[in-house]
């Protein structure tokens, strides 16, 4: 392994900065909706606990939001900086959804978030409520365009090759935006982002409740978080199932790599391994727990379907595109796929048990270990979404655009390795420092709890806005 290989450095940089960026995005997506829900509940019922929850989760949302914005700029610049040949090849197609995201969604989100943060004392209550809903809608819309761009890399459609210019050119924008991959990936991503947010809310509420603090607001937060978790976990599973079907259709190699299935299998043989101890590269099993038919069902929704194996696909692809290695790194996709599904299921379970033990008629309080599990739902949900993206993107390899361009051909030819190395080190350092600061600040805000002294009365009709 050459440490000064620009390709390797650029890939590490993309992986690092993308995973990091996506630690903040899901919380922005879910917290804007949460703040909007609580604020709506407050305006509808006039109950102060909803106001206090709005302000409390709003604060966590804001500490998180700035990081989402600034790490997002890196994502956009990076295509040109590290992947200039990729940008040249796909810009005509891939650039359009990115530009639309900016013009339709991102401006909208960035403007209305400012109005929400600083507008408490400047806008009428209804108008102010509208600004947080606008922020939430803007951020969700933004996710759609980004996923539509990503879907082109997974399943390129709506393009024609222009040999003379050496690039892909867009032929139909509606077809591009309605890519089956983005139609399935969008609800899956939003649902998992909500699941992540619910994990944060549950953890925060549990942390206070186990200490007997802020019980009135935090009981409400906990119930909300558990329902939010149950709903979003169920949606994540259902949409993930849909996405799996699309994946078998568009990227069969990725599905084969998800199961480390080397030879094509049908019916009962198309089993899903829950757990395997094998050689590190996943090529042979020593011990494995398998569910027969399950892989067939996941891939085709029938029990007698066939799932193509890695070796057979490799042979097909070699015939299509010439000699080369068309397999992703199987042990990564295999384990990422399992962790993603396992953690998703675990979240649904936490939500179900949580709702049961905190139901109104419950005779006794939940046990101490249950609170601990609830607090752990925060790091676990971070892990779930991270391995999900690792699976999606590593499973696409060796392609940067499936079947059209290999990752190694997309890297910037003119950028020397030392420059990529400098930027990789700089981003790693600065991101690490900021992660520590960010985490401590969020913890600090969480520990402080909601400010329950805030009142709205006739002498003081408006609430104070944030002051930097």
């Amino acid at each position, binding site marked *: 392994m050459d440490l000064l290989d620009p390709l390797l450095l650029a890939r590490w940089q993309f992986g690092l900065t993308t995973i990091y960026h996506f630690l903040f995005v899901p919380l922005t997506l879910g917290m804007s909706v949460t703040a909007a829900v609580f604020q709506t509940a407050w305006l509808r019922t006039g109950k102060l606990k909803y106001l206090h929850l709005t302000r409390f989760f709003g604060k966590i949302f804001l500490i998180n939001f700035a990081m989402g914005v600034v790490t997002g700029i890196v994502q956009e610049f990076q295509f040109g900086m590290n992947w200039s040949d990729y940008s040249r090849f796909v810009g005509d197609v891939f650039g359009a959804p990115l530009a639309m*995201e900016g013009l339709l969604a991102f401006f909208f989100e960035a403007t209305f978030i400012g109005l929400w943060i600083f507008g408490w004392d400047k806008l009428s209550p209804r108008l102010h409520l509208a600004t947080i809903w606008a922020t939430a809608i803007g951020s969700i819309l933004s996710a759609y365009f980004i996923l539509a761009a990503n879907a082109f890399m997974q399943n390129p459609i709506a393009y024609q090759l222009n040999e003379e210019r050496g690039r892909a050119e867009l032929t139909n924008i509606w077809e591009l935006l309605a890519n089956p991959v983005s139609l399935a990936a969008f609800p899956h991503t939003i649902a998992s982002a909500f699941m992540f947010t619910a994990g944060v809310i549950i953890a925060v509420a549990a942390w206070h409740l186990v200490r007997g603090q802020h019980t009135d607001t935090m009981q409400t937060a906990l119930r909300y978080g558990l329902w939010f978790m149950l709903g979003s976990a169920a949606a994540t599973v259902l949409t993930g199932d849909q996405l799996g079907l699309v994946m078998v259709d568009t990227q069969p190699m990725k599905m084969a790599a998800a199961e480390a299935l080397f030879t094509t299998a049908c019916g009962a043989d198309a089993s899903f391994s829950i757990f395997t101890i094998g050689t590190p590269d996943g090529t042979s099993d020593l011990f494995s727990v398998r569910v027969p038919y399950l892989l067939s069902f996941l891939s085709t929704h029938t029990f007698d379907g066939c799932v193509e194996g890695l070796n057979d696909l490799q042979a097909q692809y070699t015939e299509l595109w010439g000699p080369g290695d068309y397999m992703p790194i199987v042990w990564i996709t295999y384990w990422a796929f399992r962790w993603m599904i396992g953690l998703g299921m675990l979240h649904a379970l936490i939500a179900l048990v949580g709702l049961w033990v905190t139901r109104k008629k419950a005779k006794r309080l939940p046990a101490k270990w249950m609170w601990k599990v609830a607090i752990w739902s925060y790091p676990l949900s971070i892990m779930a979404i991270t391995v999900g993206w690792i699976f999606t993107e590593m499973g696409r390899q060796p392609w940067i655009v499936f079947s059209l361009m290999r990752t190694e051909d997309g890297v910037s030819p003119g950028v020397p390795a030392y420059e990529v190395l400098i930027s990789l080190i700089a981003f790693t350092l600065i991101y690490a420092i900021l992660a520590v600061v960010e985490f401590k600040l969020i913890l600090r805000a969480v520990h402080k709890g909601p400010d329950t002294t805030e009142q709205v009365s006739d002498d003081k009709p408006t609430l104070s806005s944030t002051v930097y």
Partner: protein
Amino acid sequence: MDLAVLWFWIVAFLFIGYFVLEGFDFGVGMSLPFLGKDDVARRQIINTIGPVWDLNETWVIVAGACLFAAFPEWYASLFSGFYLPLLLILLALIVRGVSFEYRHQRPEHEWKRRFDRMIIIGSAVPAFLWGVAFANIIQGVPLDADHNYTGNLLTLLNPYGLLGGLTTLVLFFTHGATFVALKTDGVLRRDAQKLATKAGVVTIVVAAGFLLWTVLEHFSVAVLLLAALAAVLLIGSVLANLRGREGIAFTFGAATVAAAVATLFVALFPAVLPSTTDPAFSLTVANASSSQYTLEIMSWTALIFLPLILLYQGWTYWVFRKRVRRESIEAVSDAVAEPAAA
């Protein structure tokens, strides 16, 4: 009309919007060591841009994305070629953006001062480097036949590039100081007016040099007129500051930035990134643009949404039109007393 030409001007418009708006954000950040005499004043200064810095910064994201969609070759060559300056800009924007949010999270003096320093550096670095980058775009850079940049960081740090950087640095500084005067009250407002006047005089000298150089290198009637317009507006802005009319001063200052950036784009057209290696290797509106279909789609999107964007952003500025008063900051101030020596 040739859509690629239309898109050249839409990209120009987006960058003009970015520099007019984030230009004063940068200036506000840089003015902290000059105007922020105590924590209340510093908070007052930062809060002038509190509700808007994020939407101002979004202009560069949209400009970049539109560049990518409409001119993939330009985007690819520019961003990979100007690698290290863009890296520095990104790092600066990161520390600056989070500093606004983090600074007020804790009351300790040392904590706040640390983020003040980051805001200052995070504002000055991009204010300078954007000027260096744009001056080099106009001047041309070594590009090979595949439009890949063959220079290094030092290639960009040539006299014209450095003068361009210095120009945006002092121009944005003045622009920001004027904005502080427009948006604050009392002693701070008067201090800001004085600072903006002094900085304005320096800007006149530096910008005159840069614009003259640009006019001489890229002479055309349009370039000459726009550069002259920028100069007149700048002088008008400084005079208005001198008389304590910060509203007029700011309007003229914003128009100065717009005219100066427009000068550069007019001087550049129809090239988008000239090659100094061989003129045949230059990127132009014609050979860097996207296909007709993509440009049509993008044109519809931009023509529908840009007016809406201007409308709701204009409304935001209207909502936050009031000055940030010292009392309002004092009322929420949680600062731990500053050490006597500070």
